[in-house]
């Protein structure tokens, strides 16, 4: 079982539906391997349910248009559209690595196969394209680190980096990370992870850049626009 977990605020954002698409993948992958955090998320979802329920007064709720229920009644007996199988359902997107479903599904839905780029010193990186989001400073990638190699020392310029181990392991000044563990790096942490000897280390990394807003955010307003 993992011993290094995402921070509780991250779990809350996931439960509330306020996390970025990349963070959703990483958290869902961690949850697949971590019963402890699943329990926390369950509680945080209860809070969402409770808040929904407490929208009780007239100012709080918004009436549906007349006839909304009748329109819905007509749909109840329609057969459900079967979910379309992804084109690459039978393809193993990353042979040799046991991928939790949220990552496997994400990779299978990519339009292009992963492109591994050599970052030097025994490190390769494959960027994973993300759905459109208001926060375009987020990047997600897979890392492959050769045994015993160190990832270059780096800081995060006001953002954060979450790294989840999928295979092998690495160590930094805070401990040893193996499959399922999540390391959080921020400005205060100049981390120098070194991959374990004897096995290639594969990680999912989500990097958030520096987020600066100059005015009120029109976050969802823009995303909800119909194309």
């Amino acid at each position: 079982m993992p011993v290094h977990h995402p921070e509780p605020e991250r779990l809350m954002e996931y439960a509330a539906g306020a996390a970025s698409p990349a963070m959703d993948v990483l958290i869902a992958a961690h949850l697949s391997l971590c019963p402890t955090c699943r329990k926390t998320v369950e509680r945080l979802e209860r809070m969402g349910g409770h808040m929904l329920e407490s929208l009780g007064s007239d100012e709080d709720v918004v009436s549906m248009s007349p006839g909304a229920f009748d329109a819905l009644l007509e749909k109840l007996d329609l057969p459900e559209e079967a979910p379309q199988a992804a084109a690459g359902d039978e393809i193993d997107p990353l042979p040799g690595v046991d991928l939790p479903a949220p990552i496997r599904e994400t990779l299978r839905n990519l339009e292009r196969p992963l492109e591994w780029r050599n970052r030097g010193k025994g490190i390769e990186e494959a960027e994973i394209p993300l759905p459109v989001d208001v926060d375009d400073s987020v990047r997600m990638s897979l890392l492959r680190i050769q045994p015993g190699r160190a990832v270059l020392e780096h800081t995060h310029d006001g953002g954060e980096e979450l790294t989840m181990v999928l295979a092998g392991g690495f160590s930094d000044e805070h401990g040893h990370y193996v499959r399922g563990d999540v390391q959080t790096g921020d400005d205060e942490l100049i981390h120098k992870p070194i991959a374990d000897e004897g096995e290639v280390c594969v990680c999912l990394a989500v990097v958030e850049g520096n987020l600066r807003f100059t005015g009120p955010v029109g976050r969802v307003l823009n995303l909800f626009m119909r194309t």
Partner: protein
Amino acid sequence: MDSLHRDETNNHVEAALKSGRSTVVRRNKAHLYGTMNANVSEPVSEAAQMDGLLVAVGKHRDRGAFQRLFDFFAPRLKAYVMRLGAADDVAEELVQEAMLMVWRRAETYDPGQARASTWVFTIARNKRIDAIRRAKRPEPDMNDPSFMPEEVQPADRFVEAAQDEERVKEALKNLPEEQAELIRQVYFQDKSHRVIAAETGLPLGTVKSRIRLALKKMRLTIEERDNAGTSP
């Protein structure tokens, strides 16, 4: 809705309330739900009835019960997605889709694990995100061969769920306004702690520690983790 449906509903609702969670909880530990369910002479609150109605929809495809669920949840869900930025017509459509999902998935609802409101909340949350991204929101899948099940299934999930429920309700009431507001922003305005920090100009660390304090007060994180600490 015609009267036939209404009559059907009342029978099913009664049966559902009997077979649903209220009795299960009572058998375990009635006091957890306070006097609400334990005291038979007092009416069960509208929200608490939703669990039984949802069971009725799952078991009997009860349209009358479904209408009562719709009447209760649809205006709340519409308010929820509108607070999150959806225009009226988009909100209406999302609510319709979410309620259709409620109808279709009702059989999988387990009143011992969650209140109907929690279950409906997660459906609406996912529908909204799927619509924005035009992609399915990633979630852990119990049937995934990589999925790590719990080592020990807790003996009494019903009691645990009920305790959590009460704890959240009480704690949310007693939370300092500053912290309560942060929680509302995350749930009802779709703001991550980074967005809140960027908007308010507060340091990221400050926003994070306020949220963490609120979660701790509500005892929403797992205790051993609170002690161990997860951040450097």
